[in-house]
């Protein structure tokens, strides 16, 4: 089922099944801060947020330290029931690395709380005060035809409250725009007629924003949040009547998320660098396989336009001071080709501060980018269409924000924007200059040896590899891979379906179609091997190719183990492998060397390698399943 982007915070990963057990386990931890932050990073509903808030409360009561969460005190007052909100705020703040303490005013006591030095909120000396007031709370005169709606009086009323808190507690006031209720009086004319609710709230919001622009308080644009999800969804008359909930409870997680972003921005915790994957993120398709002309970026092509929207958002972010970087599994030259030569590309090399296109794991590359830019990992966001890459980075570098993405690239840009990683409470000249400071180099950073623990990650994928000889069912996909794969392709020999049927019938040949299943699902057929009998007891690997999606999973080792195993069963002693360079397969130049083959010949047409069939090849962490089609003796 598709998750609702806003109500369900669909950019956050879904919580694991045992989230309640994990929350309970927090009670046993001496220093629970990091675990709490990790648990809060899932897309949680109001009940789950409440559970995390309780865990935080218990840790506080036991005086267990919450570091690395940073303390922040928030005063909270409003004209509705805020009790459901408080636990959601506390838990959501932990998502942003903040240990939030909320002090709530008594119901309806707005002005008294602000002006009385010894009020509950002023005594708590909060860092900020959230004035969670909606349109019912202010002295506005909403009456059709009224020429003076009392906007100035309402703004002054708020100014008194804001000044009171500033003076008596030193807190920064956070004020809200007002979300208009959806009930219209005239219809479209409501926005024109003086004194209608819509008109008055529009005017009020404009006046309020102006005071913020001049005065330096912080704005929570509730009107924008409500309009984004729909005013009729936001306002629930039933819930207001029943429990004085100021907006529908479904949006409590979203509201809390927006408040937490503001607090994080006030604490200087906003993210500052967007790292882009390339294939199927910045453009449609795989440039190494589809070529410069084959990637989809054109105006008028739905897929192309979706990816252009990602580029446009990235450029807009850059304009406001967000640093752009690239981390892609590609040959550096091939990846840069699109930036240099594709007419539809909006992003160019001079927009990119660090450009990492190589075949190393992304965690290592992201660490290198962070170091090169002198930014912390907690300033980084990775946008990547591949769920396995996202999971790897989340696991190995939990500080990096990695949004989940829906299957349709048309929603990539919206999802990234909705995640609000770059929330900010100001926009300075310095921000504007920052892009220039980083521009022009698209530099490549030399990687240190991988510092990350890939082994445990591979274990966690619970991979199963399935080996099967060619058969009729798989033939179309085999033909597609043979004719389309360019990068991980040792010989780049193309065959028709008829020729593939022929080799399947050939009693002296050995074929493999290989599938890979992991925790993310079935990757489908990801590799193809054809061995032909060269001479008595000797096989030559005619074709060996693999989808780049499963690079770094040690699939190659497992395929070689299988080839050796099957060769021994058939009385073969020696395997010959060839590397035939094409324009695009540089990444497998050292393929055979890495697997322990011995070089026997090298020339302009490539190289030839050999390995004995009793060679030992290390096993990778995956289960092996064989589907055999009757053993044929050679």
């Amino acid at each position, binding site marked *: 089922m598709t998750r609702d982007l806003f109500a369900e915070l669909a950019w956050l990963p879904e919580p694991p099944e045992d989230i*309640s057990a994990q929350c309970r386990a927090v009670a046993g931890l001496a220093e629970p801060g990091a675990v709490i932050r990790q648990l809060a990073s899932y897309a949680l509903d*109001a*009940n*789950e947020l*409440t*559970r995390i808030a*309780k865990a935080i409360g218990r840790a506080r009561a036991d005086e267990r330290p919450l570091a690395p969460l940073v303390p922040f005190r928030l005063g909270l007052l409003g004209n509705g*029931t805020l*009790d*459901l909100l408080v636990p959601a705020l506390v838990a959501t703040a932990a998502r942003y690395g903040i240990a939030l303490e909320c002090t709530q005013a008594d119901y309806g006591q707005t002005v008294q709380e602000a002006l009385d030095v010894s009020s509950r909120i002023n005594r708590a000396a909060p860092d900020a005060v959230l004035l969670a007031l909606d349109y019912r709370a202010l002295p506005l005169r909403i009456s059709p035809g009224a020429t003076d709606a009392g906007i100035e009086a309402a703004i002054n009323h708020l100014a008194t409250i804001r000044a009171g808190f500033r003076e008596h507690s030193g807190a920064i006031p956070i004020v809200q725009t007002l979300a208009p209720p959806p009930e219209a009086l005239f219809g479209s004319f409501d926005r024109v007629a003086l004194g209608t609710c819509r008109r008055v709230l529009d005017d009020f919001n404009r006046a309020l924003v102006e005071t913020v622009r001049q005065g330096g308080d912080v704005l929570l644009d509730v009107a924008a949040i409500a309009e984004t999800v729909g005013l009729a969804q936001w306002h629930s008359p*039933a*819930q207001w*009547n*029943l*429990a004085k*909930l100021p907006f529908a*409870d*479904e949006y409590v997680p979203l509201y809390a998320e927006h408040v937490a972003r503001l607090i994080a921005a006030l604490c200087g915790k906003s993210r500052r660098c967007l790292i882009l994957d390339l294939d199927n993120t910045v453009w449609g398709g795989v440039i190494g396989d589809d070529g410069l002309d084959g990637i989809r970026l054109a105006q008028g092509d739905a897929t192309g336009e979706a990816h252009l929207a990602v580029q446009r958002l990235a450029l807009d972010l850059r304009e406001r001071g967000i640093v752009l970087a690239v981390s892609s599994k590609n040959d550096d030259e091939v990846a840069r080709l699109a930036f240099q030569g594709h007419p539809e590309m909006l992003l160019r090399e001079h927009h990119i501060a660090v450009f990492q296109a190589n075949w190393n794991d992304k965690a290592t590359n992201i660490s290198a980018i962070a170091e090169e830019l002198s930014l912390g990992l907690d300033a980084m966001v990775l946008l990547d269409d591949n769920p396995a890459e996202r999971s790897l980075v989340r696991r190995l570098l939990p500080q990096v924000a990695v949004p989940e993405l829906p299957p349709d690239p048309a929603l990539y840009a919206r999802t990234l924007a909705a995640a609000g990683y770059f929330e900010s409470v100001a926009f300075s000249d310095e921000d504007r200059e920052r892009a220039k400071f980083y521009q022009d180099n698209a530099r490549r950073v030399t990687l240190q040896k991988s510092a990350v623990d890939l082994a445990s990650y591979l274990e966690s994928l619970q991979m199963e590899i399935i080996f099967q000889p060619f058969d009729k069912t798989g033939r179309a996909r085999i033909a597609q891979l043979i004719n389309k794969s360019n990068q991980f392709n040792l010989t780049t020999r193309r065959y028709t379906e008829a020729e593939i049927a022929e080799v399947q019938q050939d009693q002296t040949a050995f074929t493999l179609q290989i599938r890979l299943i992991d925790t993310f699902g079935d990757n489908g057929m990801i590799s193809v091997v054809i061995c032909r009998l060269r001479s008595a007891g000797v096989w030559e690997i005619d074709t060996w190719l693999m989808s780049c999606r499963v690079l770094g999973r040690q699939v190659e080792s497992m395929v070689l183990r299988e080839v050796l195993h099957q060769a021994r069963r058939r009385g073969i002693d020696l395997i010959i492998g060839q590397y035939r360079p094409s324009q695009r397969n540089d990444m497998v130049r050292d393929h055979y060397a890495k697997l322990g083959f011995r070089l026997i010949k090298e020339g302009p047409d490539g190289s030839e390698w050999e390995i004995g069939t009793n060679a030992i090849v290390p096993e990778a962490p995956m289960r092996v399943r064989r589907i055999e089609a009757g053993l044929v003796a050679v």
Partner: protein
Amino acid sequence: MNDADIYVKLTPIFHSVFDDEDIVVTPQLTADDVNGWDSLTHIRLMLSVQKAFNVRFAAADIVGLKNVEDLVRLIREKA
């Protein structure tokens, strides 16, 4: 949906709202029997139930509930 199905579906909701996996949801269960079932958690319970069963309760429906049996009847009527 029959009553047995409703009880099965209610159980994890009670566990989640009251943060107590030991609650056994029976027809006679009332707010007095459950630790932490105050007016606020009652609202959370009602909101969670409406969401899980995809039903809408009016204020008048909720005010009249005496025990879980009443709640189950209400869900059955609205579903």
